[in-house]
């Protein structure tokens, strides 16, 4: 009897311990990163919607076809290779020809052109009396009718890369594109997250994107010789652009803390001023006279991954540590949760807030440099409406506009949710007008979900 009761009690404590573990780890995780499930859901959805037949292209496909031919015909194969004059097809035909020669087969002719070019080559072959044993084509050239018009090629076995089924959305090139296009927004959104966590808002980031691009491009064009400028000038220009925006961010912070103006108003004013300044400096025009080295930051890659993506990942790692492990991060949350209690606990409010707005300005500036490097120009029209897109990322990522609640990594998730929806809608051919409607609805749903989960979990008290 007693032992039965004991076991019941221990069962109860175990259940309670499990509940405690749940409340300790899973519940905060769902609260902070619940949007991750939405992102995964969207990825799943668009993967299903874009599941189609894929035709391999490029050098991999070329090698594959070469091996196919060699397997069937051996070194005796005499091959006619036909592709379009595109970059992809040239890579395909070149790799195909190289591989065949290496295996010991004969390549009669390599054509990179339109059907008329193919016709000419076939005529030439039959005139010189050379009879091919195989025709190597890709998915597009295999459908040309020219091959059926000549006896030389009509009966030939044709080889093309094997197709397979895979979602367009999940193709490496598409995913890279999505990440690359999101990087600028995501980088700026780090600063915006900090600002919103303190209970503020920074509307000036879009204009700072333009200002940074114009300042650095102008510096290169007018003082460093434009396209002829060297690497050190490019580094100098980049720093100049970023520092300019940091100073403007600092100005935001000073107005908000020392003059006690509301962040919304201050950054609205600065948004107009910074934009006007960018237009004035650039005389309203784009500045394309830039050196090659300038395009590396936005267009280059390191071990196959585009620089903007690497930079984004790095910055998010730093921001995560900053917000979860440092005194500064703790202060940011404290100010956002209850500024008066924070002040009375000895938190240096003014320097912290100025620092937060400087970080936001600095990251907006970096975003502007990356963008102008990607688009290979400085332009006062860059960054238009970026502030709204960035704020949307932060909010969708679960950060409360009231301050004090939210996570930096949530913002990364939020930025990707928006990017994935945009990309998915493009791939599924939804027209741009409807895309806007959907994005607006997503924003509303995100905020609604946020209030729902808060209602469910935060009214429960232990009292």
């Amino acid at each position, binding site marked *: 009897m007693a032992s039965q009761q004991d076991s019941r009690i221990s069962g109860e404590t175990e259940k309670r311990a499990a509940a405690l573990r749940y409340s300790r780890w899973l519940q905060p995780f769902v609260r902070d990163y619940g949007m991750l499930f939405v992102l995964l859901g969207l990825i799943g959805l668009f993967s299903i919607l874009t599941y189609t037949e894929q035709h391999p292209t490029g050098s991999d496909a070329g090698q594959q076809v070469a091996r196919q031919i060699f397997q069937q015909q051996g070194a005796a194969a005499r091959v006619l290779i036909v592709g379009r004059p595109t970059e992809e097809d040239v890579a395909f035909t070149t790799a195909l020809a190289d591989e065949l020669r290496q295996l010991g087969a004969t390549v009669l002719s390599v054509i990179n052109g339109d059907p008329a070019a193919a016709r000419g080559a076939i005529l030439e072959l039959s005139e010189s009396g050379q009879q091919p044993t195989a025709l190597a084509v890709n998915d597009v050239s295999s459908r040309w009718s020219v091959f059926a018009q000549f006896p030389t090629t009509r009966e030939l076995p044709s080889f093309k890369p094997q197709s397979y089924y895979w979602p367009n959305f999940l193709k490496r090139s598409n995913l890279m594109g999505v990440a690359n296009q999101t990087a600028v927004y995501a980088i700026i959104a780090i600063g915006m997250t900090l600002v919103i966590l303190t209970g503020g808002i920074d509307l000036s980031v879009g204009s700072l994107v333009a200002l940074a691009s114009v300042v650095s491009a102008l510096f290169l064009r007018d003082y460093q010789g434009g396209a002829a400028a060297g690497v050190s000038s490019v580094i100098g220009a980049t720093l100049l652009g970023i520092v300019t925006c940091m100073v403007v961010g600092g100005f935001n912070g000073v107005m908000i803390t020392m003059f006690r103006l509301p962040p919304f108003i201050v950054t609205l004013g600065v948004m107009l001023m910074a934009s006007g300044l960018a237009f004035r400096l650039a005389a309203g025009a784009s500045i394309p006279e830039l050196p090659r080295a300038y395009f590396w930051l936005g267009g280059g890659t390191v071990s196959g991954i585009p620089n903007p993506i690497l930079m984004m990942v790095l910055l998010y790692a730093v921001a995560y540590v900053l917000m979860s492990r*440092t*005194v500064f991060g*703790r202060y940011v*949350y404290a100010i956002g*949760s*209850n500024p008066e*209690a924070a002040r009375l606990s000895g938190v*240096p409010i003014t320097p912290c807030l100025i620092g937060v707005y400087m970080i936001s300005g600095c990251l907006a500036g970096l975003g502007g440099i990356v963008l102008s490097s990607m688009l290979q120009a400085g332009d006062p029209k860059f960054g238009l409406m970026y502030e709204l897109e960035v704020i949307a990322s932060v909010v969708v990522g679960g950060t409360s506009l009231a301050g004090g609640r939210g996570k930096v990594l949530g913002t990364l998730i939020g930025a990707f949710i928006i990017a994935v929806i945009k990309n998915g809608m493009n791939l599924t051919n939804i027209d741009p007008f409807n895309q806007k409607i959907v994005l607006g609805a997503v924003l509303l749903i995100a905020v609604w979900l946020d209030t729902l989960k808060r209602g469910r979990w935060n009214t429960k008290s*232990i*009292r």
Partner: protein
Amino acid sequence: MSDSIVPQTGPVPLLRMRCVSKSFPGVQALRKVELTVRGGEIHALLGENGAGKSTLIKILGGVHQPDEGTIEIAGQAVAFTSPRAALDAGIGIIYQEFNLAPSLTATENLFLGQERSTWGFLRRQQEQDRAQDLFSRLGVAIPLDVPCHELSIAQQQIVEIAKALTKKARLLVMDEPTTALTPAEVDRLLAVICELRTQGLGVIYISHRLDEVEQIADQATILRDGQYVGTLARSELERQTMIEWMVGRQIENEFPKQAVAAGAVRLEVKNLRRGAAVRDVSFQVRAGEVLGITGLVGAGRTEVARLIFGADRRDSGSVQLDGRNLSIRSPRDAIREGICLLTEDRKHQGLLLERSVRENFGLPNLREFSTGGFVLQRQEHLAWSGFREKLQIKVPHAETLATHLSGGNQQKVVLAKWLQANAKVIMFDEPTRGIDVGAKYEIYLLINQLAHAGKAIIMISSELPEVLGMSDRILVMHEGRITGEVLDPSRATQAQIMQYAIG
């Protein structure tokens, strides 16, 4: 205890809650609780924080539904599924946080949601007359055309009561209505409540102030740990009994003051001034001394503490610590010098409610718990665990949000963070406001310990028994000035202090 059964005489009771139980995940909040209230009766509901008073009231108000038990209103069984249903049944609940629209006038608030109108146009005169009528019935004059945020807390309270009356409330529930009121305002409010009683309303009165309960209650129901302890009739309402029933054990001395030999002068304040709030205040506090500062609300007590702490800027005056002049310009400076302030308003000034208790605890101590800007979370957690044990803070784990704790435990978290800061001067502003008897006692013991450890302690309080019982010396303030000093509190009386406080 349960043999003191309420005599079932008179007409059908206005409210009868029987055998009410309610549990939340992991907590049995209420277990078979009984509550019977008649019309024309003031019924006190007593218990420590966490005893289940709030849950019981929320069940009555339709916010929660009971797991078992019945509720009868005037003999009719009811089951409230929403706050609206309770309101319609004539139950008016006035919570500690008011539900007034601050920018609307008293009249507009009274008729909010039930405006008198024809074709959408307000009939202002009719509303005005009705409001005037209500307030005169309550025996108070409230300015009718002033936004509510300009009214005093006491006046806002009256507006809340009147609002409940416009909704035809038969049973009024008041949750800690007097915590923020001055003694004179308390008297006026109690008179209003007695007036309601003569008009036949039933009143459920929740308060930690047992003297008020003794003064006006006809019966008192006491809860402890979610259980029904019993109901005391008017003749049995004695302070000692109520405390014993609430705490479940005997407390011999409400104020466990221990004498400590005072050391050298720790803190000296000279000619402190700030506008009309603080006018030329000077005093000293010695190591090991508990200096009580009292006076009416608005006398400038809190303001003095805030000036010393650097929370507000002083016009003039100096603060010396251990004979050294301090130039404190912000709370951060004060904390660095070893001065701390436990604010009276924990929710708005003391805690980050939406952050974990560990973060709250660490916030003023990050200088100690960090290297190179990085927080040393393990050390922080270790120190927190130490204080949790020492102060017996009831909290599931270190990551619990501060908002989920009861008032007493919140106060202990605030205490823990300042104890960790190892301050030399500790200023308590209303240290036991809204805290139950048991937790109060623990805080008094802590004040003793701190005095023993040679801290200089300033205790600001409106509760005269507390000031008299716990201080070594008392300063009384009136309109920004120190108007009296009591050197031997053990021989002073409340009347003597009130004399000084009135000026």
